[in-house]
């Protein structure tokens, strides 16, 4: 029997707090519901806002002064992953479904990714899942995915790049790419693409929206129904807004582990590479490969993906690189692991503990 999928459209220019509260209310109500009905919401945020991953540290991820000057709101998702810039040109997709439908949350995640990839296929873009959380087109990221399990339901999130203001992104987010100056823009172009970039003038927001609905119906064998939000959904959304997403506590509830950044130079067959790594505690949040090349070879962009989420431990790192990296023909895994760990130790051991600033709530925000 075909399942029902309640579809919410038409939300555009929503505030970050309201948008996130509604998404979480969807998963809460899906978990409580006995109908087995899933919920799909396609929307965009007001220009612009920064959405952090569940455990990221606000001060370590966002240039707060820049955000304040540009009147850009900041909020925190319940899903994991990294900070993203959202606005009218980024399509938000939230999908809440009973966890009983899958053997595991990860399996559900694969199907969610298939649905987004299927939608891109419908509009003429051939895409694929890259690593754990990204969808790519010819090696360039076009969408980021995340998910969160709450009780008996799972919330899946996707941020699909219809277009992207790269300069704004670099000015707001404290990503290693921002340290590359003028090369940062090129580096983003090497690593990301957009619907407009792929389709040019054929791109249409509405076409993407229709394709998403078609693809979700097919992948989840569901029939779309269009009803207004229930009273329960609205009430839960309002509660979450007041108690969570509109509060300063939630915004600054970052995870444990000091945030930092370090770099290491590695000699390879194709020259000397510089690896710039951002870490939170012992986990690599992101890595960027730079060097004397106009555009990063695919194997090295692949290395960035392999290093993301890796634990900075020589044995674990070597094992991970050998297991998943084609670029091991360019880079010696053991040498690479040792270089990363030594650079981390050098910075980590020299670093003075910072009680206020970077990874902690700024003094002016604690009052």
């Amino acid at each position, binding site marked *: 029997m075909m399942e029902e999928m309640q579809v919410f459209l038409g939300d555009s220019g929503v505030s970050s707090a309201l948008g996130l509260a509604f998404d979480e209310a969807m998963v809460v109500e899906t978990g409580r519901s006995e109908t087995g009905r899933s919920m799909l919401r396609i929307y965009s945020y007001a220009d612009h806002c920064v959405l952090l*991953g*569940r*455990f990221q540290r606000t001060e370590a991820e966002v240039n707060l002064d820049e955000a304040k000057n540009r009147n850009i709101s900041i909020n925190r998702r*319940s*899903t*994991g992953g990294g900070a993203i810039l959202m606005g009218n040109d980024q399509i938000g997709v939230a999908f809440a479904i009973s966890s009983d439908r899958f*053997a*595991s*949350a*990860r*399996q559900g995640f*694969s199907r969610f990714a298939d649905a987004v990839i299927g939608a891109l296929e419908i509009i003429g873009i051939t895409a694929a899942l890259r690593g*754990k959380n990204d969808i790519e087109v010819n090696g360039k990221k076009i969408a980021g995915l*995340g*998910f*969160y*399990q*709450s*009780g008996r339901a*799972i919330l899946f999130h996707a941020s699909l790049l219809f277009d992207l203001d790269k300069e704004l992104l670099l000015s707001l987010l404290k990503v290693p790419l921002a340290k590359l100056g003028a090369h940062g823009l090129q580096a983003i172009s090497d690593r990301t693409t957009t619907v407009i970039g792929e389709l040019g003038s054929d791109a249409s927001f509405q076409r993407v929206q229709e394709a998403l609905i078609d693809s979700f119906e097919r992948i989840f064998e569901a029939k779309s129904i269009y009803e207004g939000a229930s009273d329960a959904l609205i009430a839960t959304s309002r509660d979450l807004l007041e108690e969570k997403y509109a509060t300063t506590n939630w915004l600054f509830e970052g*995870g*444990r*582990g000091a945030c930092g950044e370090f770099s290491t130079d590695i000699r390879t067959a194709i020259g000397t590479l510089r690896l710039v790594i951002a870490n*939170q*505690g*012992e*986990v690599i949040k992101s890595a960027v490969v730079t060097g004397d090349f106009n555009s990063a070879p695919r194997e090295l962009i692949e290395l960035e993906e392999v290093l993301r*989420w*890796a*634990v*900075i*431990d020589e*044995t*674990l790192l070597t094992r991970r690189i050998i297991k998943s990296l084609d670029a091991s023909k360019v880079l010696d895994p053991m040498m690479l692991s040792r270089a990363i760990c030594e650079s981390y130790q050098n910075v980590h051991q020299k670093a003075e503990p910072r009680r206020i600033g970077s990874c902690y709530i700024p003094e002016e925000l604690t009052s």
Partner: protein
Amino acid sequence: MAGILVEGYEIRTGLFYDDATDMWVEVQDGIAHIGYDPLGLEINGTLAQLAMAGTGKEVIKGDTIGTLEAEKFVGPIQSPVSGTLVEVNEAAMDNVSKIHAQPYDSWLFAIAMSQPSELNDLISGDDIVSAFESRVAAYRVKGVLAR
């Protein structure tokens, strides 16, 4: 405590295992020390962040006792036994590399058990090896573990 490799994962025959949460449980004087087993770590991927409830929280088996962000999963940490949360291993939670390298030396939280009979529902003794093999096989069939 004896360690055995099963399908490439170390298991310890003196412990209890819960296949619903992929956790190991060690009980002494009514206190259960609990951590992720090697298969659980493989399934979740790198445990980037863990946040636990405060001590004193009372839980029923299966209740959420914290949240985690891992490489492959973001969601609740569920307790495999009922009781009161009496201790959180902050040192382990700050040492992700040790959790992955030495999972059995990295308990995450301790529960003063209120229902000791629940241990009968966990896997122990002679059943551990076969149950672990079955879990690995099931995860492979589901496609969440590489063959």
